[in-house]
């Protein structure tokens, strides 16, 4: 009896999972920020009206013109209030973290956490375009010349365009 109940539960759960309308996408994108123009790729997990996007980027100016890595990781949560056959639009929350090593006489890491709110728009089916714009707060944290931690903050913005491909 117990076994039948578990099987029944499994089928109900599977049914709900299918009904959840999951979709996964990968994308390549460009993000213009206050600190640099970043190029990167993302994995997007779509569940009903919600998008969870995980990205890695590197700063183009620092990488291509100064031969230095300026990596940035990003998490983006979007709730699509407009969800049509091939179009999605909704407010989004973006959390970024970038690191730059200024490599003076010792390791000189500068950290750039950033939180922004804005909107995300996507259009397409199997292949499509994504656009995000957001404003928020950017922090800079580093050890000063006396090795004391120092944090400053300012207004910031992100403009992002990309192309996605639905993998399932």
């Amino acid at each position, binding site marked *: 009896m117990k076994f039948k109940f578990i099987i029944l539960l499994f089928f109900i759960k599977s049914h709900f999972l299918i009904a959840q309308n999951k979709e996964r996408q990968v994308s390549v994108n460009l993000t213009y920020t*206050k*600190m*640099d123009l970043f190029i990167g790729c993302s994995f997007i997990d779509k569940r009903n009206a919600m998008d969870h996007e995980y990205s890695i980027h590197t700063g183009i*100016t*620092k990488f291509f*013109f*100064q*031969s*230095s890595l300026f990596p940035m990781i990003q998490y983006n949560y979007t709730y699509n209030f407009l969800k049509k056959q091939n179009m999605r639009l909704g407010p989004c929350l973006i959390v970024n973290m970038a690191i*730059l090593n*200024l*490599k*003076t*006489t*010792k390791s*000189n890491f*500068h950290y750039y956490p950033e939180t922004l709110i804005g909107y995300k728009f996507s259009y397409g089916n199997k292949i499509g375009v994504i656009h995000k714009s957001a404003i928020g707060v*950017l922090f*800079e944290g*580093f*050890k*000063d*010349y006396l090795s004391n931690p*120092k944090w*400053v*903050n*300012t*207004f910031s913005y992100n403009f992002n365009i990309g192309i996605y491909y639905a993998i399932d």
Partner: protein
Amino acid sequence: MRLIKSVLIILTLFSACNKKKDFLDIKILGHAGMGLSIQNSFYHDNSLESIDLALSMDGCDGVEVDVQMSKDNTLWLYHDPFLENQTNLSGCIADKNNDELSNAKYKSMHKEKLIRLDEIDFNKLQNKFLLLDIRHFNNCLNTSVNINDFVASLIALNLSSEIKIRVILKNSSWINNFTNSGFEVIYEAFDLADWNNTISIYQHLKGLIIKNADITKTQLNEVKTNQKEVYLFEMRAPKSIKKALLKKPDAIITDDLRASILEKYK
């Protein structure tokens, strides 16, 4: 196999382009703090926050600031000729008294206050450079401010000898007033001909400050062989910063402090 070879060739070229340059003798100075009108600057130029942030950074050897004198003979930091360009006030600094100027705020996101020169934390400048770009002209009245008052105000600050102070002048007729009062003066020239004319008259000048684009490496070496310091300014992009460093000046006054530190030490 062909792909691996291509990748190896590209990587070799990349690392060859990235070979280490010896820029360690060149000082990196922040233009008005973290840079003038630069997108990645957190604060407005010449503000206390911007200067403080620049001086906190490991790799920054000092700052250049723009100095103007108020009606009360107090030295204030401000770049533009007119206050309405950047602040909530209008007119010129030379026509305002200290009470009026103490209410001035920049039209920026942080609304930083206009500051007096003596508000800078001079402890952070120990063994570092402080370049004072003297703005001698009152654009509202089309006259120069009183030079003796200007020099007296600067002397009254009693700046520590531990700070490497250089006075930047565009007006050659002011040179003797500052050098006679013990200040080390660098002359801002339009080109090398202008510098040669000026140095032939004022041989006691400490050095030359010139736009990066207005001097070649050979011309710069010519100035340095005469035991004069050379400061380059107006550089934002990594390419122009690199070009400036390759000329081997004594210092660069940069608009992108982070990029310049990275370029110097990488």
